[in-house]
């Protein structure tokens, strides 16, 4: 049972959440781990929430409430929304840069501030790491590559049963050279974050 690992990922449609999920799944498979991943989208492509999962040592592609070892949030409000999926003692890695939903952007509703979200998440799990994912992506060459920075940070924390080198090899093997270069840079930028 200890060989099981469940990662819950959440973000906003168009952010590249599913690209990151597939990359991680390919990396896991490349080192021979029994991996399953799942995704729920459909209508989510139109700016809605995109949730995906990656499980090692499980048959189910689904993660229930309180079951995730790791929560990867590509948007802070979505990190907070998905927090009930995290198990006690679990790890949270999240973007610290908000993409407010339209109701918030137009002042019709208010969302908790990133500082509030940070405080709430840290109070819940203590084991949280926030990084400026979009800025790191822009720094690497494309805003979407910020997701890969989050994976880099995950590797640096030693939270995966394989290292950054495996993800780097998967990026090289599956992406066009130009895109791969940006994502490799993002991976390094992310890995340098958790100090």
């Amino acid at each position, binding site marked *: *049972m200890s060989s099981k690992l469940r990662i819950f990922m959440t973000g*906003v*449609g168009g952010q590249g959440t599913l690209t990151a*999920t*597939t990359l991680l*799944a*390919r990396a896991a*498979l490349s080192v021979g781990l*029994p*991996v*399953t*991943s*799942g*995704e*729920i*989208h*459909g*209508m*989510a*492509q*139109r*700016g*809605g*929430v995109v949730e995906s999962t990656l499980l090692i040592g*499980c*048959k*189910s*592609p*689904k993660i*229930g*409430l*309180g*079951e995730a070892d790791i929560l990867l949030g590509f948007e802070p*409000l*979505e990190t*907070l*929304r998905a*927090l*009930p*999926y*995290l*198990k*006690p*003692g*679990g790890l949270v890695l999240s973007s610290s840069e908000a993409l*407010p*939903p*339209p*109701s*918030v*952007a*137009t*002042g019709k*509703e*208010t*969302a*908790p501030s990133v500082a509030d979200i940070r405080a*709430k998440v840290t109070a*819940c*799990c203590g084991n949280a790491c926030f990084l400026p994912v979009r800025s790191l992506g822009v720094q690497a060459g494309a805003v979407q590559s910020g997701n890969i920075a989050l994976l880099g940070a995950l590797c640096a924390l030693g939270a995966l049963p394989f290292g950054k080198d495996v993800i780097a090899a998967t990026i090289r093997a599956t992406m066009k050279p130009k895109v791969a270069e940006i994502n490799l840079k993002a991976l390094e930028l992310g890995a340098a974050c958790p100090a």
Partner: protein
Amino acid sequence: MAHPLLAGAPGETHLFLGNEAIVRGAIEAGIQFITCYPGTPSSEVPDTFFRLSPEAAYTFEYSVNEKVALEVAGGATLAGALSMVTMKHVGVNVAADPLLTLTYIGSPGGLVLLSADDPGCHSSQNEQDNRIYARLAGMPCFEPSSAQEAKDMTCAALGLSRELGAPALLRTTTRVNHLRGPVILGEPTVLSKPAGFQKNPSRFVPIPAFARPMHLRLLERIEALRERAESSPFNVVSGAGTVGVVASGISRAYLSDALDETGLLGKVKTLDLGFTYPLPEKLLASFMQGLGTLLVIEELEPVLETEIRALAQRLGLTLNILGKTPGPLPRFGEYDVALVQTALRAALGLPEPKKQACACGDASEVALPAALPNRPPNLCAGCPHRATYVAVRKVFGDTAVYSSDIGCYTLGLLPPLKAADFLLCMGSSISAGCGAAKAAGQTVVGFIGDSTFFHSGITGLVNAVFNRHDILVVILDNRTTAMTGHQPNPGVDKTNLGDNPVRVDIEPLVRGIGITQIRKVNPLNQKATLAAIEELKDLSGVRVLIAEEPCPLFARRAYGQKRNQVAYVAGDCAASAQDGSCGDCLNTLACPAFYVEDGKMAIDPLLCSGCMLCLQICKNIKARKGDAK
């Protein structure tokens, strides 16, 4: 480089989406002919077949609807081609007419129908259980639970269908279609060219005299199929004990993890059913011997449970059967590992597990999510549907009833557009709109997209003319099937693979039906659109407005469309301006590019698509050069 779905060598392991694994399974079986109508969660199957089609040996088409898709593939299998038809669960309702007679006639070349069901209604209007169609039509049913099984069962179902001439059902659920897992490849088969149709009216023309013996042959075939299910490698018994569990589909994955988590692996007797209909009765009879309790785990309807109860009664067994009638399991929504664990414990007489705690306390009563602002899917920035809805609302407001249909434009349901009052199914906007208008004399505006119009809107429009209904039909022609991933339909000029050489024009088609009150506009031209709607409002009878403008996401990719201007707020648009001092775009358009800063409206230049709708509504908004999009 050829795609591993086509070129992958036997023995290689690849990570495939469930839907990609289905494509590989079909290729390994030697698939020759594929038809479909796209729909989530099935769409990646036909889209993958389409993408690979320039390099592949099969014939592929996007058909205009599911009935047509099954009929085309039905003809292909009669001519000897190994065929597959793909659709989402509600599509099978559309295809039910040919389906229920095709199983009488049989499929000489082999035919598999993929029905992608959607427990939990992730992207559907209902969660109907299409395993019932296997019973109704008399076709074998396969229910995979992993990517590997999705490939293996597709291949096996096609082979069995061809061997016995029996149309087969491959029934998946959203979780299976959209999971990814390792798939070990097998050897692709190359079949000889289809032999062509062999004339034999008593076998292929179901006039009553021939249909009666056809039905008898179908019943015999079901028994032959049952024998195959008895010995199928997809039906596996394991474990031991006096408590048994039968599980099907994705529930088998949940059961496997639940047994592992609870340490019960090997301590209960399990029957994994993958080839689920016809029910392998001998296998089940032997499985039930010595059991005191049997738990049946299947999402949605108690299909297997009811059949197993009937079998137990016939065999005179007195074991206690649990499932949903009565039992611990619900008849709606998706299952998961925790739910299966709870059901297992109930079957074993163990105390209920402690509620799974999450990092913030008791997971069952987490207070967080409800209080957070939602992020509902929305029409994209620059979506032409928004422009049409704004104009229609300006003319009709809440005085008209808005009959909606299925597509991106259903998202116009939410305020401030509020452009969807009711919806039945694909194509219903016109026909149901006619009924609503005639019953009580209300003004009805029906909205239908181009693909949905071709799917089943045309028949409703012909009916509206013939029965002299009173309706304004707005055809939202965005030149593609946007919602499901930009698949082509008969009206498009571009597909993801290039030009569409044969285009069916909507306007002459509508004219040909006999409708004369037609206007065609580009909805991004608000003045012309408003004028056309005003004119049509003053008329009666069947009126059609064609609002034509490509989906901007598709236009960028397929047409290479570049817009190098963005909108910005030059004047003062207060966030709460409803005093007439500005156009109040913020509160009437719901464009995702709008936001409020320091109480004033602003436009995000990165999100603005340059459609310039807001410019035409508010004098304070101007255009400037921006990044080409």
